């Protein structure tokens, strides 16, 4: 996996529900710390755009979809376990 690849994330949230808020925050921190200058985040509110959630087959929120680099991965939850998330992203285990 090339280190120079840009990560594109799409995070589905349920309005201002607490877990969703937490997920947004955690994702932002993770990107800032581990992927400086190579990430893009899109937030989708399922209450506002229910169709999109359906289109993307999202059943639970918050859910993080990793669009690039391939393959596409889905991670459900608040993203608070940074190591797990990094692993899921295929990033080397960087000491937090």
């Amino acid at each position, binding site marked *: 996996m090339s280190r120079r690849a840009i990560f594109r994330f799409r995070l589905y949230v349920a*309005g201002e*529900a607490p*877990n969703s808020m937490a997920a947004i925050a955690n994702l932002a921190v993770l990107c800032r710390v581990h992927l400086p200058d190579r990430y893009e985040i899109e937030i989708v509110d*399922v209450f506002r755009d*229910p169709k999109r959630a359906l289109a993307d087959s999202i059943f*639970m*929120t918050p859910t993080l979809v990793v669009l690039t680099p391939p393959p596409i991965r889905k991670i*459900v*939850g608040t993203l*608070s376990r940074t190591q797990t998330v990094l692993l899921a992203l295929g990033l080397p285990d960087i000491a937090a």
Partner: protein
Amino acid sequence: MKSITAPALQGTDEEIRTLIELLHATGQRLEQLTAGEVDAVADSEGRSFVLRHVQERQRHNEAAKQAAILNALPAHIALLDAQGIIISVNNAWRQFAALNALPSPQFGVGVNYLALCDHARGEGAAEAQQAAAGIRCLLIPGGGAQSFSLEYPCHSPAQQRWFLMTATPFADDPPHGVVVMHIDISERKRAEGRILRLNRVYAVQSGINALIVRVHDRDELFRETCRIAVEAGAFRAAWIGVIDPQTLDGRIVAWHGADQDFIRSIKLTARGATAQGEPPACRSLRQGQTVICNDIATEPSLAPRLDVLLQRGYRSMGCFPLTLAGQPEAVIVLFAGEPDYFDVEEVQLLANLAANISFALDNLEHEKTLNRIDAQRQQGEESLRRFSSAMDATADAIYLIDRTSMRFIHVNDAACRMHGKTREELLALGPVALLETSRAELERTYDAIIASGADAEPLELLRLRQDGSQAWIELRRHAQRTGERWTIITLGRDITERKRHEQEILATKTRLQGMLDAIPDLLFELGLDGRYYAYHSPHQELLAAPKEELLGRTVGEMLPAEAADAVLSALREADTTGRSAGKQFKLALPQGILWFELSVARMAVVHGQEPRFICLSRDITERKQAELELRENEARFRSLINLSTDWYWQQDADLRFVAFSGGDHVDGWGKDQLTWVGLRRWEIPGIAPISGTWQEHKALLEGRKPFRDFEYQRLAGDGALRFVEASGEPIFDADGDFAGYRGVATDITLRKSAEHRIRRLNRVHAVLSGINALIVRVADRDALFHEACRIAVEDGGFRLAWIGLIDEAAMELVPIAAAGTTTDAGTLVNQRFSLVEETPRGNTLSARAIRSKEPVFTNDVPNDPAVVFQAEHAQRGSRSMAILPLLVSGETVGVLALYAEETGFFDEEELKLLTELAGDIGFAIDHLAKEARLNYLAYYDPLTGLANRSLFLDRVAQHLRNALAGGHGLAMLLIDLERFKNINDSLGRPAGDALLRLVADWLTSHVEDASLVARVGADHFAVVLPEVKQDCDVARQLELTIEALVEHPFRLNDAVFRVAAKVGVALYPEDGADADTLFRNAEAALKRAKASGQRYLFYTRTMTATVAASLSLENQLRQALDNDEFVLHYQPKVNLVSGKLVGAEALIRWNDPRSGLVPPVRFIPVLEEIGLIYEVGRWALRRAIADYLRWRAAGLPAVRIAVNVSPLQLRQRGFVAEIGQAIAIDPQAAAGLELEITESVIMEDIKHNIASLQAVRAMGVSIAIDDFGTGFSSLSYLSKLPIDTLKIDRSFVIDMTTGPQGLALVSTIIDLAHALKLKVVAEGVDTEEQQRLLNLLNCDEMQGYLFSKPLPAEVFEARYLAAASATAA
């Protein structure tokens, strides 16, 4: 997510229930599955539903957020439901309610707030009910009010507080509740209040300012001020009181807002505090200061009237002074309804206001004068109306206007003239046209005049005259009622002139003021008596007192006498002549003492008035100071020049002298100086530089440098050589060019000659001291003379010096020694001078000196006929000579001749010194002669050849003189050769003498000067160190010397001896100032050294006592023998077994008449030391024998007496002979004598002692060895000793009882003694135990306190001998 299959339905309810259960279960499961991290799930249609637990969390969060917000707000917030019940409150609400147990807001969730408000009572009830009503409006469905708010006060006793209550309905419709907020707006309210108050003050201010402009008299001003204060300013009340400057009493002249009773109750005075204090208003009036009382209730001085004040609601008061011409004239007092009303801003504004009013008062004063004339005129106007003809006579234009018609009723001639129109024309014109205004306008004006009932303000109009010139017209109008119509009377005056005049005056005043302000001087207007009437000048700091204090007082009161006199005299002069200028005086001001110069002019006299004077006072301090400095400088300069030897000189740019000043009175200068004008310094005749060359000096002048102390000499007109010291500095003109030199010069001739003299005297002193030192040392007369001459020439700088002695037989003077810078010295010595009077040579100076026995001198050899060999002397360059006679015992024995190079060398002082010198030499001669004549022995020790004690002390005396003159110290050493006596005794006299000689030689060579050493005793040497700088020098030398002495092997007849020495040292000046004292003290030091074991000791004062004591002891002991003060005590010895008396030990005691019986340990050592031991020992021996014989003769059973023998005695050569002599007196004597000798003594010289003891024993005297066991006995010799008894030392006896060893020891000794066939005596037996043990050990005899202590002869005799005999008998 796959859909969950639903179970079969059993009806709607069933369905619903199942659904709910399913949902419930699903929810729970989902929660478990997602670990609570999922917020929402979506169904198949994509609709998302928030999970229940998340919903709950959200709700909870929201609630928390809301609560946080509510709590964060600074307001007290309560949420009410639609019924008005409190559903929640925030913290602030709780706190507020807790702090203030106030009826209106009570905390308490569940309480119906609206009901509370409805039922509110007391203060705030109205507001509460209002609030309830308002809130209800909000709750009306269908959109009632949007919000409702209400302000209400909520004062606590401590402070005033305001609150704002707002109520806002919830956002739904109908609102389900209301948010009620109470916000503390006290600050805002207070700020608002402040602004309101300030606005009021501003309103007052502007009202009063408007008033000031139009007011005409003081009373109106005051009245209106009070009114405006109350109405516009919203003060409760205002009053103004004025003060009568004479009585200091005040009265209230205007008030508003207060009732008469109150006003009457006020007592206003400026006299000062009464017993109750000074009310603020009085104080303000008296001091002219603003006085504020922000809480009347607490002002002590108002306490008596407090209820009067509080009744009317007066809570604060401000008193502001009003001044007229700067003096407190009145006070305005304002009352406010609240306490703390007057804050800083307010007070400032009101103070300004008061100042404005004061200004207005001042203006009114000025206007009064103007108005007087106006008033007069106005009066005229009144009567004018009645006398229309008179109207025409006036110069003023008069118009009468009918208000109704607005037309002229009448105009007078003057009016016509003024307008250049005929009466008809004017009447036709009418006032409206004339004034070029509109009718309506004019009507309004006239109505106003009518309405006001007072005179309108005068109107000033500018009109063009017919001739085109401008004219100012002043119109004064007055309304008069005639029946039903009003008539306006207008007076018109051409005030062009006045206006111009006014403008001119103003311009002049401004110009004048500008001029005055520009003048740095003080301008006063004074009366002839010196009274201050006015002061014009902005400079307050130069006044003797503040301006306010000056005005009205006289200079006599305000200035010190001297200054006042100056001013008054200037005033008088100005009064007489019109002006005075130049008078000066000084004044002590805070910044220092300042000088002023007066210019006074009399002002133009106004009729009837006292003359006034304008007085200009200029600060001339700087000028004065400069003057004084200049005078001082001049004085100093002059005094400098006038010093006796100083003068001032000046040279031009060519360095030629141009002027001298001050040198007239200097000897030899005055006339000469005149001749130097025009010369350069080096051109002066007879001049020669001393400090440097002319070249160097000229170079310095070229360089335009200043110079100091340039010395030169010149031959004065009278032939004398004069010395000068000059100093100078270059002068530069205004352009900086060199303009010459100037400076001062001093005649230093006297100084120079003084310097010479001192140098000469120093030389003479050098000679004197050299020769004195010489005299002491020298032993040879001729050597003395040679040295003396040498010293005179070398140290004294004489050209030639010689000494000659008289050969009486040949009546000739024989030069013995000479010294000089020429070789003639040698030839001189071979000369002889005849002293026979008649011969020409008999009249020489020498001859004269010899005959007269006085110094003879000439200070001018070349010209003195009495000098022999004049030519020779002149050749040698001797210009002065002196012949000093040398006297011995009053007779001249010779002369000392000295020749000096300079003339005038021998002056009084010198001759005195030289006479002294001659005396010293005479003394030396005498001394030397005496020395040679005297008996050798008297001064010398024949044995060693050293000086003896007398000579030594003489010499020391001489050295002391030198030490005194030379300012240095001196040391005397006394050296004692230790145990020399012993050596003498053992080796015999000749050997001892030889040793002494050796020691003497050694000392002499060590000290290197025989004259410093002396033999002052048998084995005592003395050395003097004539020049001692530091005591440690002596010590060091001593140590070295003693060490050397001790080490030195003295060879004598193949034997090598080493001596030891003890030294006592006495120092001058510490230890004495004359030879005898020093010697005595050196002796004392020596004694101490010997006693102490130290090699040498310095004498110190503290020694005196001890030494004196021991010395005296010595003396006492010497006397003791002569005075029979010694006695023998006898201690009995007894047989241990039988207890019988077998013997007695004789012990010497000294019966000191001073202190009683002295034990031997105290005096025996001294006896040994002073050598008295032999005599005392001999005495003891004889005494014991005598006693023995006496007892025997008396028939008593006399026992053998044991006498102690000291080691010294034993060593004595004649010891045996002595014993023999002692017992020779009686054949029985030997049997009564035993000698006790200590073990150590015997063993010292065993061989010799054995012989002696044998001899003694052979005589029949028995011998006992004393203190046995304490010495080092040689056992081999012990058996050979001719002894009979062995005495065990007391220490062993004591030890017997302490342990087995002690016992064993004693036992052994006893056995040993017995083995040697010796009797054993135990000494110091004090206890019975000891006796018992000794008995057991077979000791023979004992002696000790157990039996008896030593007893005097009589007692011993009586107790033991008599008794024994009795018993025997």
